[in-house]
């Protein structure tokens, strides 16, 4: 079908016209592919511009070292540390949950499951990252905290960092499982066979050959998952509470950086006020941290790709 119509087309148009069309399409497509780069530029400049006006009112030192964040109160303090601390704690809990579970799932999928079982299991595990995060927030607030975690820790708050961390852990589990699975499956067959020929049992091949060989891929998956965890908003906003307190007690409510942004967005922060500008300062800070983590993660993946 296509062959015939294209032959007809080739015959009907002069070569100059066809080349011209090709040129025009090429430029149009180049233009389209520049959109993502333009978007990055817009993101960076918008955040920086509004943050500049924020930092004319607030000193950078206070922002980075202050331990009180009371922007939405009458007596305003602008120390990001409570928000940063909460973000790091919930993300650390998430990674502490997702790494062992995700790695175990990856080992099972790549080394033990048959092809059929794998084709069934992998999409199911990946479904976990396709569920809207509002749904996870709901599940954390009304099921995980009151019906599961309260049984283990009776004095747990309704809003608490532990449930938020665990739920984000479930959300990022597919990232760890899927990327680690890919990393382990791309370990060359030679290494496996060499280990078997030395008389190793399967578990020894898996734990002492495959996992170490895929280690940089696994580490990269954990770093990327950590970056994803730091940016998670709705779970923290629903189940974590809006309480910007510098605390290390995971049984308490804590406000993360994205959750602060969500709180300001929920309320009323008129254009041009310090509350409005603080959105951009927090956003920029969050972006810089996650971008650094992603940069490291991608670098680690690259290094590992070169090795084989």
């Amino acid at each position, binding site marked *: 079908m296509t062959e015939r119509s294209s032959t007809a087309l080739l015959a009907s148009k002069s070569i100059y016209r*066809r080349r011209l069309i090709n040129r025009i399409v090429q430029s149009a497509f180049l233009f389209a592919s520049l959109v993502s780069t333009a978007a990055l530029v817009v993101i960076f400049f918008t955040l920086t511009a509004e943050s500049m006006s924020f930092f004319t009112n607030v000193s950078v030192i206070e922002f980075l070292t202050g331990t009180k964040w009371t922007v939405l109160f009458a007596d305003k303090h602008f120390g990001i540390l409570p928000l940063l601390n909460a973000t790091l704690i919930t993300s650390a809990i998430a990674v502490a949950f997702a790494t062992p579970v995700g790695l175990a799932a990856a080992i099972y999928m790549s080394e033990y499951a048959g092809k059929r079982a794998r084709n069934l299991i992998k999409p199911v595990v990946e479904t976990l990252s396709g569920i809207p995060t509002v*749904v996870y927030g709901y599940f954390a607030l009304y099921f995980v905290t009151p019906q599961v975690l309260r049984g283990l820790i009776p004095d747990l708050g309704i809003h608490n960092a532990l449930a938020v961390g665990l739920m984000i852990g479930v959300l990022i589990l597919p990232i760890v499982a899927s990327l680690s699975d890919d990393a382990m499956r791309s370990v060359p067959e030679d290494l496996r066979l060499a280990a078997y020929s030395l008389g190793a049992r399967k578990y020894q091949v898996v734990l002492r050959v495959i996992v170490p060989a895929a280690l940089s891929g696994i580490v990269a998956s954990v770093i990327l998952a950590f970056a994803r965890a730091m940016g998670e908003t709705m779970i923290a906003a629903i189940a974590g509470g809006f309480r910007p307190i510098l605390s290390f007690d995971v049984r308490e409510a804590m406000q993360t950086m994205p959750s602060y942004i969500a709180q300001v*967005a929920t309320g009323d922060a008129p254009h041009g006020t310090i509350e409005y500008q603080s959105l951009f300062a927090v956003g920029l800070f969050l972006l810089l941290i996650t971008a650094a983590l992603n940069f490291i993660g991608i670098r680690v993946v690259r290094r590992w790709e070169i090795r084989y």
Partner: protein
Amino acid sequence: MGDQVLKGEGDVSLKRAATRRKVLDGLVPVIASIGVFVAIAFLVSLLLYVVVTGAGRLTPTLITDYPSANPREAGMRSATLGSVFTVGLAGLICIPLSIATAVYLNEYAGNKWWSQVLRYNIANLAGVPSIVFGVVGLGFLVYGLGLGRSIIAGAFTLAILTLPYVTVVCVEALRAVPDDQRLGAYALGATTFEVVRYIVLPRAMPMMLTGGILGISRALGEAAPILVISGLLFIREDPTSLLSEFTVIPLQLYSWISRPQVAFQQLAAAGIIVLLAILLALNSLAIYLRQRFYRRLEAG
């Protein structure tokens, strides 16, 4: 193991080590399968809890009624329409852009340095937290360009948010088209555009649409960026134009979840069932298209 045979089987410690290895060999797959089990258990318990809580409240009025302070009368009509308009428009912007980007990267640019830079930027864009897209949308689209807290501002934000995901799938689709078909067309004197139009795109299209649908289902579940752009609104009318204020299903759910009454929790659960059902339908469609893609590739 070789040592073991040479030194004789009487050695107790060697025998014990061999038994230990045998036990471990059986144990490791069991431990590893626990990882899979935990993941599936979470998914199943989440679905069960939502269905048990929300099934009783699942009525047609949930979609046809406007939100209300009375949980018995409340529905998510305005949010459903808002989602359809916002996500639909985002898809119309994002899918053609992604296809064009993927075609440029894979068919025109080859491995030149700027193509590497573009790829790297797409990877970076995928790493930007979704809430940051919302903040930038608020500063740049809502106030900077003066679009207001409108459907079009939300749609543009979602389009750029999903752009990297859809582009990656489109590039994969193009890579899966065998090179000999391209080379055959080039050998007959076709221009790159003609190769793309008549050889590559017809074969890659189902997989690209799969990417588009996955992007749409991701956009449909996003609450954070829309929350920043639209605020948490109580809307009791249908959107009339692209500049209307709006809300979306995940935000409507968020506002119900934040209320303490049990009736609103049930309402939220019912809304979650609807949202998950839509996502399930979209993903099934995506899987169907992907299978068609591979069948079409095999047919040549």
